[in-house]
């Protein structure tokens, strides 16, 4: 039983990391209708920035956490101002390609600045655990879950109460009509890229914390987040979190139980598993668990 609970806890922790990455995708998608392939790059950049704040410049960790988030937002805004704003109104395809170009750039800039070797983040959480009722929970995971909760709450408040919330969605649906309502598309995009950058930086930091290390392959988590965002629904923050948790838990569970009970599924099945779950869910609900159906009326 504790085995199972332990697995569940690790699954939730993994899921929380996925969720955080996925939330970054969701903002951009909601505002621009674009899947941001550079999101993983932003995460990596966030992790390295955290390293700089804490290790190189000696900022206390929790302050570094805040600064990293802000710096992440700055990176998002910078990318928007330098490149993306030229693409307001271009078809999503082009912007997606652009984010791929950005990813290629970030992938090269990071090792050029920090080197290719993994670096220690030096977070106070480390491998510390708490063990309520015999279940080991990593402190860093608790923090990750906490950060996810805060970000999610922030998202809800933002989309519910801020004018920007509606403005973002309106912009994504019909840019021209949104501009005609006085919605400043440039600002909407800048805000959403900043938020995406902020969330990504936090995601990068949590991925590097807890002994993971600041390393280039943090970027790969973004790949795993693809099924997560689709599963929850591309435009749904709640869905991102639900999808993240679902996939996290399913992956950890299948890692343990598939080799024991379903060997016929072949070696390395847990890696494929998120995609299998995703495909099954999509066949039942083509817009994910919480995604909004595209309106099509004639």
């Amino acid at each position, binding site marked *: 039983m504790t085995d199972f609970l332990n697995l569940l806890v690790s699954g939730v922790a993994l899921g929380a990391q996925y969720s955080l990455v996925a939330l970054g995708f969701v903002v951009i998608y909601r505002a621009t209708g674009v899947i941001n392939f550079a999101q993983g790059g932003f995460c990596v950049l966030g992790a390295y920035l955290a390293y700089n704040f804490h290790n190189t410049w000696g900022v206390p960790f929790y302050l570094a956490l805040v600064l990293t988030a802000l710096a992440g937002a700055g990176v998002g805004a910078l990318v928007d101002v330098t490149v993306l704003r030229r693409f307001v109104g271009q*078809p999503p395809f082009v912007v997606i390609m652009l984010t791929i170009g950005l990813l290629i750039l970030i992938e090269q*800039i990071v090792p050029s600045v920090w080197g290719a070797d993994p670096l220690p983040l030096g977070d106070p959480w480390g491998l510390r655990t708490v063990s309520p009722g015999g279940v080991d929970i990593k402190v860093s995971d608790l923090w990750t879950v906490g950060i996810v909760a805060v970000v999610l709450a922030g998202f809800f408040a933002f989309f519910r109460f801020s004018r920007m919330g509606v403005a973002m969605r309106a912009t994504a649906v019909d840019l021209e009509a949104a501009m005609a309502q006085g919605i400043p598309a440039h600002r909407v995009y800048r805000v959403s890229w900043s938020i995406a950058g902020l969330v990504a930086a936090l995601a990068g930091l949590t991925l590097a914390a807890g002994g993971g290390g600041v390393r280039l392959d943090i970027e790969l988590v973004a790949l795993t987040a693809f099924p997560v965002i689709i599963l929850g629904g591309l435009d749904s923050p709640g869905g991102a979190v639900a999808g993240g948790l679902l996939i996290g838990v399913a992956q950890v569970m299948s890692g343990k139980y598939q080799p024991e009970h379903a060997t016929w599924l*072949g070696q390395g099945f847990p890696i494929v598993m998120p*995609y299998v779950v*995703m495909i099954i869910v999509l*066949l039942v609900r083509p817009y994910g668990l919480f*995604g909004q159906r595209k309106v099509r009326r004639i």
Partner: protein
Amino acid sequence: MARPGTLLVTRPEQRLRLLPTNWYKAFVILLAVVWLTVPINLSDAWLDVLARCGVAAIGAIGLNLLTGYTGQISLAHAFFIAIGAYTAAWLGVRSDLPFLLWLPATFVVGALVGALFGPFALRVRGDYLAILSIGLLYIGQHIFVNWTSFTGGRPGTSTGAPAAIGPLDFADLNLFDQAYSRRQGLFWLVWLVVAIVALLARNIVRTRPGRAMQAVRDRDVAAEVVGVSNARYTISAFALSSGLAAVAGGLYGVVALTVSPADFGGAPGLLLSVQYVAMIIIGGIGTIGGAVAGAVVVVAIPRVIEQISNSVAIPFVGPGEPISLFAFNNMIYGALVIVTLVFEPRGMVAGWERVKAYWRTWPLAD
């Protein structure tokens, strides 16, 4: 502004010419001459790059039929390329079928597998479909790794299938007492196939099935209402596109001699698929010529950058400098993608049209 030539059009047939003006005819003749002479004048290394460009061009034409013309976004192209490569290994290498049999058979197998995926596209749309198709890459990798009898598992399998058309063996070409290298021969072969595929694709898109695909892209419900079956054209576009991907895969096998899941599955597969998307976007979405041009650029540019940066000194770049030459090459590549899009978001073909329009209206343009 209408082109002066079109003013003289009097019968509908005249609008249907593939090469409406003498300029086009001259251009095609020029291409043929280039095709014939390039292998004589380029090094084997570049011929290899160009053969890969040609392989990519076939795949990109396929993807453009699906994405550019039918509006279905797929990132599973690498998967279908893999299907082609493995099928070619099976039919061409292990069963030793001749080129003129195994290549079309590869198309058929790819098309069948693609058609199986088509129904997913009817249910799941747009970006959701794109990511669903990534799932296919991972599941594909899983299959390729585990189904060892067909794929050779992780180490992969030999794919040097026969490349002879009748007495002409392009892998070992001897013509008029002159021997040509494998890479020369393969250049001729691959680009011959590119030309044929491009012509067939061009014909498809300008006739009934092609129009139907575009109708589905522009407005699927309306298409259905005017009598264009969404299901039929979406599925057949998938079949067509994956069939061509498979042909590309088969030829890739001939060029590469060996394939393994490391070429196509999971993350490398995603990278490859993304490259194909890059080809059609950078070349020009919804045009056959754009797909070919995009393929050449996307495949060859990294090599060109490599050659250039190897021979010029760049500040801050190189051994002992902050930026390694290799990182720099990739940065340039990324920057080129971005700059191209900034300059011409609709791709090279659109840029070309713009240049043409400029010259046509030249005395008037300001």
